[in-house]
């Protein structure tokens, strides 16, 4: 059975239909990348799955528990979020907390974990993303790439069953994307279940098991990573990949 199964999600902002009936399944250990042009609804979809936006319609089964994506209770949502991690495009580290405090806050406050236990988990998580030596730094003392690595450690520390990445490298200077992508690659090698909204085509190719192309609120194609890039089913996917490759070529 799928770890995450989303059925019939719809979401509009006013008259603008951002997501028009989407179904997604993600199995345990799978890394699903969602590609698509700007405004295709990728980020909104990801936010709906973690209830940062409330969908107009849709059903979701996560780890065997069913949720109404429009009418879930606060309690259900907070229970769900105890098992998911979310990494934002703009990192959103707590600005008044150091790196280690950022990582342990959800454990000590959100989960009432004893401090010493949380600290141990937090240090392990920072170590994993290579940020242990910066554990007492505040966000403003860290580079974008370092902040994003701390944000990944923060998501990891809560021992999530799935981690959602919302364009994790889009806000970074090009020379800093590598360190973040490396960390995500490492997680994928360890079998972490992940859904990644990204513009990094090459990264999606190496890290993903499956890839989706979204456009205008629809899924154009879902395929295995290899098929998606080497032999896509849809003409539209070919065009999209062509366009991306051309743009990269001009850089």
């Amino acid at each position, binding site marked *: 059975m799928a770890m995450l199964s989303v059925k019939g999600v719809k979401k509009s902002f006013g008259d603008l239909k951002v997501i028009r009936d989407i179904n997604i399944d993600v199995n345990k250990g799978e890394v699903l990348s969602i590609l698509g042009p700007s405004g295709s609804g990728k980020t909104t979809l990801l936010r709906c799955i973690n209830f940062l936006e409330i969908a107009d319609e849709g059903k979701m089964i996560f780890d065997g528990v069913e949720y109404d994506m429009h009418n879930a209770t606060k309690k259900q949502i907070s229970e769900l979020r105890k098992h998911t991690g979310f990494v934002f495009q703009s990192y959103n580290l*707590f600005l008044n907390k150091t790196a280690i405090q950022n990582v342990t806050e959800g454990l000590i*406050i959100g989960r009432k974990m004893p401090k010493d236990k949380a600290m141990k988990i937090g240090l392990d998580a920072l170590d994993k993303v290579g940020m242990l030596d910066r554990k007492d730094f505040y966000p403003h003392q860290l580079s974008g790439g370092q902040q994003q690595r701390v944000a990944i450690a923060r998501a990891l520390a809560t021992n999530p069953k799935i981690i959602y990445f919302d364009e994790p490298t889009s806000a970074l200077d090009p020379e800093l994307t590598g360190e973040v992508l490396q960390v995500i690659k490492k997680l994928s090698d360890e079998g972490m279940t992940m859904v990644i909204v990204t513009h990094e085509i090459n990264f999606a190719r190496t890290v993903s098991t499956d890839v989706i192309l979204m456009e205008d609120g629809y899924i154009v194609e879902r395929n295995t990573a290899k098929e998606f890039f080497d032999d896509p089913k849809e003409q539209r996917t070919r065009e999209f990949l062509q366009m991306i490759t051309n743009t990269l070529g001009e850089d």
Partner: protein
Amino acid sequence: MTSRVWGIVLDSFGKILLPGLTVTIPLTILSFTFAIIIALVTAMVQFANVKVLRKIARFYIWIIRGTPLLVQLYIVFYGLANVGILLKPFPAAVIVFSINEGAYAAETIRASLESIPVGQLEAGYCVGMSYMQTIRRIVLPQAFKTAFPSLFNSLIAMTKNTSLAANITVTEMFMVTQRIVARTYEQLALYLEVALIYLIFSTILTYVQKWGEKKLNITEKSEV
């Protein structure tokens, strides 16, 4: 100035300073503390958009900001007596100053809360914290830092505004000065003297503010 005036001024210094320490400062500290509590609640119900309470908060701010502080003092101390509510001068002053400053500070705090990026709240939710946990641990501490200079401004203003309490028979510094003036007829020297004492109080507070801002700025953006 003649030696007679100097004599009066020197002789009065302790007499004016004493109620400054025993009345003006306690009145300010008590009123400001209550004001901040009122302001926090008033700001939070608006920030969290609590249905009916939000309207009540707006109404309260509208009334208080729209009427003069001196008139509010008269209504509470002299006016309420007409309907049988007799308050002693000091408690009446504390009530009016708290409610008055509460309305202004509420706006300062609300604006600071709204200046915190929504991503901070979302990040709190996503690591498994509740709304109130995120507000208390993440949003309020950051908002407080933003609000601190304005709130301190208000504290300095309130220290001086407590002189209005003389109008409702609170024997604070200004009231005592007026009494000495009534005996000696040295208006200029004595009013300048009390002004100087207020200035000393404000100056001390200004230094406290500087020190406080430095403390708070540990997490402040220095570059980027």
